[in-house]
C-alpha cells in the first residue's frame, strides 16, 4: 500500500475549494426481502435465508415489497423530495459472483423520489444539502475472500459467498454536489450522515447500524483551485462505515488531492478505500475503464405508480423530524446550543424528554442524565439508554429531592441502588434508610451532641471564627450518616453558639 504525500489541511484549504457529494445506502428493516419472501434477520447462518428468487434460479421472478416502497417514499418525503407519480425499476447489468442474477434490480433515470434537501447544523451555521434522488434497489450477497494478504479478491485462494443479504431492500440517497462548505467540509459530511441516520431512526425504517453495514456511505470529493469555478476530477471513497471515518476520509482526501494538484499532477477518477488504522485512502477500481451497466427498464416488474392522495396521507403521518424536534425541545427546555449539542452527542433527547414527561423539571432531568448517569455510562462504555434505570425512576428521584426528602448526595446513592438492581427509588430509600433527617428535634439533639464533642471548634465559632462552623456541620453530617439537611444544621449550630453571619 503506497501512501502519497498529504498537504497540511489549512494550506490545502487556502489553495483549493472542496466540493463534496455523498451517496448513502440504507438497508431497510423490512421483515422480508425486496423481491421475495425470505427473512432479513442479520447474522443468520450463511445461506439459510434464500429461495429460488433471491438465488436467481431459472424461471424465478421478483415481486416488489410494498412496505419497502412505502418506506422509500416516506424517506423521500422526510428529505423534502418530490415523489414520482410513475416510475420503473431498471436492471443494472454486471457480472459478479455475489450478485445471483448478474444484474441488480435498481432504478436508473426514474427514481421514486427526487429534488429534495436536508439542512444540517455545523458550527452554528445551517448548511443546506440538496438531494438529487432517493431510489430503491436490492442488496448483493456478501463475498468473503479467503487466503491472500488483503482480504480482497486479488490474491485470494478462494472465495465464499453468503446470499442471505442478496435481495435485502436498499435505499440509495444521492446528494447534489455540495459547494461552499470550505474548511467545514469534513464536518458537513459527518453532520449530514448523522442527520440522515437520525431521520431513518425517527421514521423507523432501518436500524441504521453502520458497523453492521445497514448504513454505508460513499464519499465523493473534488478540489478546485481558488479563483476557479470549474470542478476538479472527483474520487469516490466507498463504503465508509462510521461517522468519524466519514469526517476523516474527507479531510484525508482533501489533503491528498491538494498535494497532487499543487505538484502539477492530475486526479484520477477512481473509487478508493478508507483505512481506519492509517486514516488515509488507497485506490480501488479505476472508473476510467468505466463499466457499462447497460441499464434498461426491468421487464419482470410492473411500474410503480403511487397514488398522490396516498402519498399525501403518508406525508401527513410523518413523525416529527429530528431537527424540528430539537428546536422545539430547546425552546421548551430553555437550554443553550452547547447543552443541546452535548445531549445530542450523548443521544439523550429521548431520555430527557421522557423524564420531563414523567414529571421532572427539564433542568433536573438534564442534570441527572448528562451528569451522574452520563458518567456511569461512560465508565462502563455503554449507551445511556441501556443503563438499567428508567426516565420515570429519575423523575421520582427529582421529586424526592424537590420535596426535601433527599438531598443531592442521597439522591446519587439512590441512583446507585437502582442501577445495582435494588429496586425502585422508593425501595432503595427504604432499604438503605436514606431518608433525610428533617425532624427538628432529632437534628437539634445531634447538633448538641456534636457541639459537646468538639469543644475547641465550638469555642472558635463563639469567638467569631465562623468558618470553623464547617467542621461542626461536617460532624453533624457524619453523625447523621449524610441524611441531615446541611444548611439547616449550620443554622442550628450558629444559633446555639449565639453568633450570626
Amino acid at each position, binding site marked *: 500500500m503506497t501512501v502519497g504525500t498529504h498537504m497540511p489541511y489549512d494550506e490545502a484549504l487556502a489553495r483549493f475549494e472542496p466540493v463534496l457529494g455523498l451517496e448513502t445506502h440504507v438497508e431497510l428493516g423490512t421483515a422480508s426481502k425486496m423481491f421475495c419472501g425470505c427473512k432479513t434477520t442479520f447474522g443468520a447462518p450463511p445461506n439459510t435465508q434464500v429461495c429460488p428468487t433471491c438465488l436467481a*434460479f*431459472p424461471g424465478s421472478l421478483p415481486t416488489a415489497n410494498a412496505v419497502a416502497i412505502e418506506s422509500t417514499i416516506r424517506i423521500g418525503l422526510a428529505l423534502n423530495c418530490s415523489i414520482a407519480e410513475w416510475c420503473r425499476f431498471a436492471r443494472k447489468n454486471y457480472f459478479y459472483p455475489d450478485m445471483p442474477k448478474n444484474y441488480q434490480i435498481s432504478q436508473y433515470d426514474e427514481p421514486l423520489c427526487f429534488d429534495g434537501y436536508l439542512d444540517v447544523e455545523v458550527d452554528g451555521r445551517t448548511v443546506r444539502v440538496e438531494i438529487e434522488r432517493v431510489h430503491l434497489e436490492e442488496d448483493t450477497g456478501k463475498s468473503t475472500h479467503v487466503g491472500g494478504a488483503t482480504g480482497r479478491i486479488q490474491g485470494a485462494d478462494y472465495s465464499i459467498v453468503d446470499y442471505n443479504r442478496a435481495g435485502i431492500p436498499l435505499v440509495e440517497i444521492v446528494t447534489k454536489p455540495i459547494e461552499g462548505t470550505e474548511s467545514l467540509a469534513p464536518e458537513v459530511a459527518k453532520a449530514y450522515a448523522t442527520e440522515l441516520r437520525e431521520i431513518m431512526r425517527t421514521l423507523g425504517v432501518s436500524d441504521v447500524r453502520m458497523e453492521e453495514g445497514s448504513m454505508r456511505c460513499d464519499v465523493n470529493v473534488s478540489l478546485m483551485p481558488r479563483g476557479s469555478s470549474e470542478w476538479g476530477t472527483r474520487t469516490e471513497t466507498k463504503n465508509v462505515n462510521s461517522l468519524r471515518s466519514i469526517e476523516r476520509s474527507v479531510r484525508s482526501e482533501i489533503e491528498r488531492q491538494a498535494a497532487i494538484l499543487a505538484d502539477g499532477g492530475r486526479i484520477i477518477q477512481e473509487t478508493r478505500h478508507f483505512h481506519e488504522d492509517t486514516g488515509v485512502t488507497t485506490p480501488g477500481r479505476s472508473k476510467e475503464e468505466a463499466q457499462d451497466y*447497460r441499464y434498461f427498464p426491468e421487464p419482470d416488474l410492473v411500474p410503480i405508480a403511487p397514488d398522490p392522495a396516498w402519498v399525501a396521507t403518508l406525508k401527513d403521518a410523518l413523525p416529527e423530524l429530528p431537527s424540528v424536534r430539537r428546536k422545539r425541545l430547546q425552546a421548551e427546555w430553555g437550554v443553550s446550543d452547547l447543552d443541546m449539542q452535548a445531549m445530542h452527542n450523548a443521544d439523550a433527547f429521548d431520555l430527557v424528554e421522557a423524564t420531563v414527561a414523567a414529571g421532572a423539571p427539564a433542568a433536573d432531568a438534564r442534570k441527572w442524565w448528562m451528569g451522574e448517569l452520563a458518567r456511569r455510562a461512560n465508565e462502563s462504555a455503554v449507551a445511556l439508554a441501556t443503563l438499567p434505570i428508567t426516565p420515570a425512576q429519575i423523575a421520582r428521584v427529582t421529586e424526592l429531592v424537590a420535596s426535601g426528602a433527599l438531598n443531592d448526595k442521597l439522591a446519587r446513592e439512590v441512583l446507585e441502588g437502582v442501577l445495582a438492581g435494588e429496586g425502585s427509588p422508593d425501595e432503595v430509600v427504604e432499604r438503605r434508610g436514606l431518608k433525610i433527617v428533617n425532624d427538628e428535634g432529632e437534628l437539634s439533639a445531634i447538633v448538641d451532641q456534636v457541639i459537646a464533642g468538639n469543644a475547641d471548634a465550638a469555642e472558635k465559632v463563639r469567638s467569631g471564627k465562623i468558618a470553623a462552623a464547617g467542621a461542626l456541620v461536617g460532624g453533624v453530617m457524619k453523625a447523621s450518616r449524610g441524611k441531615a439537611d446541611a444548611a439547616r444544621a449550620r443554622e442550628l449550630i450558629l444559633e446555639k453558639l449565639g453568633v450570626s453571619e
Partner: protein
Amino acid sequence: MSLIHKTAAELGALIAGGEVTAVEVAEAHLDRMAEVEPKINAFLHVDRETTVEQARAVDARLGAGERLGPLAGVPIAHKDIFATADMPTTAASKILEGWRPPYDATVTSRLRAAGLVILGKTNLDEFAMGSSTENSAYGPTRNPWDLSRIPGGSSGGSSAAVAAYEAPLSTGTDTGGSIRQPASVTGIVGMKPTYGGSSRYGLIAFASSLDTPGPFARNVLDAALLHEAFSGHDPMDSTSIDAPVPSVVEAARQADISGMRIGVVKEFGGDGYQPGVLARFHEAVELLESLGAKVVEVSCPSFSTALPAYYLIAPSECSSNLARFDAMRYGLRVGDDGTRSAEEVMALTRAAGFGPEVKRRIMLGTYALSSGYYDAYYGQAQKVRTVISREFEAAYHQVDVLVSPTTPTTAFPIGERADDPMAMYLADLCTIPSNLSGNAAISVPCGLADEDGLPVGLQIMAPVLGDDRCYRVGAAVEQALESRWGGSLLSKAPAL
C-alpha cells in the same frame, strides 16, 4: 378408435365416466411414444414410471370422489422450459443438462392440480430461440408430416408430439411466434394468450416482456380447455393480469361468427409468401365471409417494422436474463480446476454451455443496450413497439379480430435455413406484432399447400383479453373446414 386418436375432451369424459383409467390412457400414449420417438425426437425426457405414478394418483383422486376438471387424467407433453420438480428442466441447453429445479412452474402446478398427467418434457430451440427446433443442444425434432422437415419452433417438440399422436395436448411458450408457427407447420391448433394471461413463474425466461405460455391441441375446444386449466392471475408473477380468464371454452363451443367484423391485414402477403399458403389463406377469408362475418381490409403499416424491433428487444432482454447462467449456483461448470478465477470459469462455462444462436442473441442484445447505442437501438425499438400497439388498438376499433397467414411458408427442410439466421427470422414475420403488443392470437389449420401438400395455418388475432374471440372464430373455421374435408386436417397426414 384407439385411445391415442381421441380428443382430450373425449378422454377426459371417458376417464370421468370410469370407462377407462388414467393409467390406461397414459400407457397407450407411452406405447405410442416408444414406437414413434425414434423417428420424431419430440421428447428430451421421458420417465415411464413417474408418468404412470401420476396417472395412478389421478385415478385414486377420482376414485375418492374428488372433483377435478374436464381434463383430469388426460396426458400432456410439457415444454422443457417449464420447471418441473420431478423431472429435469434444461431449456434444451447444455448449460442446464441434468438440472432438476427444486420447484414447479405455476403452469406445471396448475396442470397437476387439474389432474393432467405429464408424459415428459419436449424439445425446443435452446432457450426458445429459434423457429425450427434445430437449435436444440439435443438434436432436432422432425415434422410428422415429413420427417425431413422442421416441426417449427421454438416449441417444435410440443407441436410434433401432438401432431404425431404421442399426446393429445402439450404446452408451449410464444415469444415471437413459438407456439403459432409450430402449430401452423404441423397442422394443429396453437394459441398465444394475452401477455400476462398465463403465468411466467417457473418459465425459464428468454424475453420477459414477450414470453407467454400457451396450449397446443389437435382441435380448438381441447386448446381452450387446456388454456382455461393453466391460465389466470398468479401473485408470483408481477406482470400477471389480475382479471378473470376470458371465457374461452364457451367461445370454442359457440363457434358462431355471424355479424363479426374481421380485418385482413393488408401488409401480410405478397413477396416472400408461398403461393400455396396465400391460396389457402384467401379461401379461409372467403369461408369466414360465407359464415356471416363482415370482412374488411385493414392496413397496419408499422407491422413491417415489427421484426427489426423484435430482434432488438428480445435479444436485449435475453442478454440480461441469461446472465444468471454463470456456473456459480447450478448447471454446467467448466474449467474449475483450482487455478482459474471465478470470472474465467464463468467465461469458459458460458462458451461451452451456450449454442451459437444463443450466443448470437446475447451479443446482439449486449450491443443494443450498451452506452451510446441504447437510444438508437433499444430505445427506438420500444418506440416502434408503442406505435404497433396503437395501430392494433386503432384496428380493433374497426374490427373484432384480424386475420393473416400464421407463417409465410410451410415447413421447410431441416438444414435449409440453419446457416441463414435472417431467413429463419422471417418465419415469425406475421406472429411477432402480437407479441410486441401483448394481444391474443391463435393459429388453426386451414388446409394443405398445393406445392408440397404441407399444412397451412390461419392466424386470428384479438385485442388484449379478447382471447375468447380467437377461439370463437377458430372453432367456426374448424367446424366448416372439417365438414368440407370429412375429418381433421391431421387425418390426411401420412402414417408414421
